[in-house]
């Protein structure tokens, strides 16, 4: 699978010098603390995403790397050089803005050539590289148009080309697909990964769309409240979230707060607040610790009769049912009082309806006990 391959590449390059590194970075705006104690290392060639809800500090982090903001404290390193005091125009990074920020008084060609002309490249060289860039983003016929005469997707590609043409060490993408509609987004996601593979340069993307982050990234940093909650590969983040926030933010999950009754090396037994006893996977945890058990909707099975085995199995009743084509989205009210979201493949063999009495069950390894926040 592509993801494991990527994870392997990521692991292989961990030893080399990071392309971008943030060390203990703080950024305040007046009394507001936008970013606190940030440590981050992005490896060369990585597609790295910063994911988080709006206002979590992810865009600020990107702007710190680009040089639009100076850290209040801490250091920013690009390719090993401390650039904390280097202004944006002398940093070897280029940005694709959410708004594209195209210069609408210049043609597409001039927009793309801007960075090269600023660096006083020879005219012929500028022409060649702009031509290459246009070809790369398949915009050759639009070279002499003005940005306002292009569609949203085309403008997006101009923004990409304008950054790429400078051959930056690092590409910074601030919600690059945020302004596009759903269908175009999917298409551009494919183009982005293709570009990344072709160019082999480091991409750092900021997004609030977890699906996009999962689909595109080698590694993801999940930010919340100015801090990084977890850095890891997509499957790390999804399958092994470190905090309830990450579990909740990435994908859907059911969170059941409770306390540990028995702690084993890799497994714990938890009694939830409503009295449900749950077996869950866990790291090093001790008895009586407050935890939150996270179980993904798609890991839960529904059946009409009770299931055996050493997993978790509870009785309940379907209270809501939504038909979503590929699957069914149900809410099951357990007899203990809790409600669980369950995602059930759309198959003929589970005839369920609202008010059907059902059993829900999942394997202990499919749920995770997380330290309560």
């Amino acid at each position, binding site marked *: 699978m592509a993801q494991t391959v990527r994870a392997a590449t990521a692991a292989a390059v961990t030893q080399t010098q990071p392309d971008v590194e943030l060390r203990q970075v703080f950024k305040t705006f007046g009394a507001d603390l936008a970013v606190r104690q940030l440590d981050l290392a992005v490896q060369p060639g990585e597609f790295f995403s910063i994911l988080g809800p709006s206002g979590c500090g992810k865009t600020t982090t990107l702007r710190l790397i*680009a*040089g*639009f903001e100076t850290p209040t404290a801490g250091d920013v390193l690009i390719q090993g050089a401390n650039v904390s005091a280097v*202004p*944006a*125009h*002398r940093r070897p*990074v*280029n*940005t694709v*803005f*959410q*708004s594209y*920020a*195209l*210069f*609408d*008084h210049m043609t597409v060609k001039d927009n793309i050539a*801007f*960075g090269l002309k*600023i*660096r006083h490249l020879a005219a012929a060289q500028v022409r060649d590289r702009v031509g290459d860039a246009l070809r790369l983003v398949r915009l050759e016929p639009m070279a002499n148009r*003005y940005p*306002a*005469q*292009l*569609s949203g997707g085309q403008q997006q590609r101009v923004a990409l080309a*304008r*950054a790429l043409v*400078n051959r930056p060490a690092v590409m910074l993408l601030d919600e690059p697909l945020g302004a596009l509609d759903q269908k175009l987004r999917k298409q551009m996601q494919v183009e982005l990964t293709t570009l990344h593979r072709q160019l082999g340069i480091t991409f750092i993307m900021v997004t609030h769309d977890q699906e996009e982050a999962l689909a595109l990234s080698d590694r993801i940093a999940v930010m919340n409240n100015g801090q990084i909650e977890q850095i890891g590969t997509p499957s790390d983040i999804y399958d092994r979230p470190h905090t309830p926030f990450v579990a909740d933010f990435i994908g859907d999950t059911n969170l059941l707060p409770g306390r540990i009754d028995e702690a084993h090396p890799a497994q714990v037994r938890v009694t939830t607040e409503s009295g449900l006893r749950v077996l869950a996977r866990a790291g090093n945890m001790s008895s009586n610790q407050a935890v939150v058990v996270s179980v993904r909707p798609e890991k839960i099975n529904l059946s009409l009769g009770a299931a055996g085995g050493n997993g978790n199995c509870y009785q309940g009743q379907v209270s809501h049912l939504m038909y979503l084509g590929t699957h069914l989205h149900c809410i099951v009210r357990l007899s203990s009082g809790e409600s669980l979201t369950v995602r059930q493949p759309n198959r003929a063999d589970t005839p369920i309806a609202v008010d059907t009495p059902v059993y829900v069950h999942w394997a202990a390894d499919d749920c995770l006990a997380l330290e309560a926040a």
Partner: protein
Amino acid sequence: MRPNSSAPQPDPTHPPIPLMPRLTWPSLFTALMYAFMYFPIIVLGVYSFNDSRYSASWDGFSLRWYRALFSDRRLLSALQDSLTIAVVAVAISAVLGTLMAIGLARYRFRGKALYRGVSYLPLIIPDIAIAVATLVFLVSMAVPLSLATIIAAHMVFCLAYIAVVVSSRLQRLDPNLEEAALDLGATPTQAMIQVLIPQLAPAIFAGCLLAFVLSMDDLLISSFTAGGGANPLPIEIFSRVRTGVKPDINALSVVLILGSALLAGLAEYVRYRSDRIRQST
């Protein structure tokens, strides 16, 4: 992207309007108001061709007042003074006003509200109050009045008007544009000159035009700051209107109105052009 996209979309609230609007009472009333606006101008125009000196009755068609006008050295030199004042004041104000608007948009600092408030003052304080204050100041500083003092005084309101127009454009501008230029390697100065200023150009132009028209029309501030033989057109016209007008003033009105119409047309054209380039598809 832009609300006044010129694409002729049918207006949902009204049935498609034929080229000739129906004669409803609002359209009739509007026509009447147009007549009201142009009536005095037409009267001046008609009298400018009247042979009579007293303007009271029609004595026959004549171009003598136009001949008188174009051989009136005093009037022409007043026009030259006015143009000098307006062009110099507007040119300097365009730079200072634009810088001020950019600075106000970019920086946060203590006393910014006060600064902004002061920059709005020339738009609010009546001309007469600005005029007398400037005179008192110049007299108290023992600055001899001259063409330069008029320019200095005109710059106050010119830069305020330009800054206001540019500010409103800045507010609608993508804040990332300048950063994009920096990001692509432009120095802050290059970013301002190559990206920000071109983006602001239509607004700067509009502001300059407004300031130019106001400067050309200003009587009070000029009256209080004129000296050293400087005699801008409004002062000359005012003096002639008071000391007895000969109909060459009528001819002057016609010439000035045609000139202004030309300028207004140019302004409209520039606005239309910049809208065209920026209009979304």
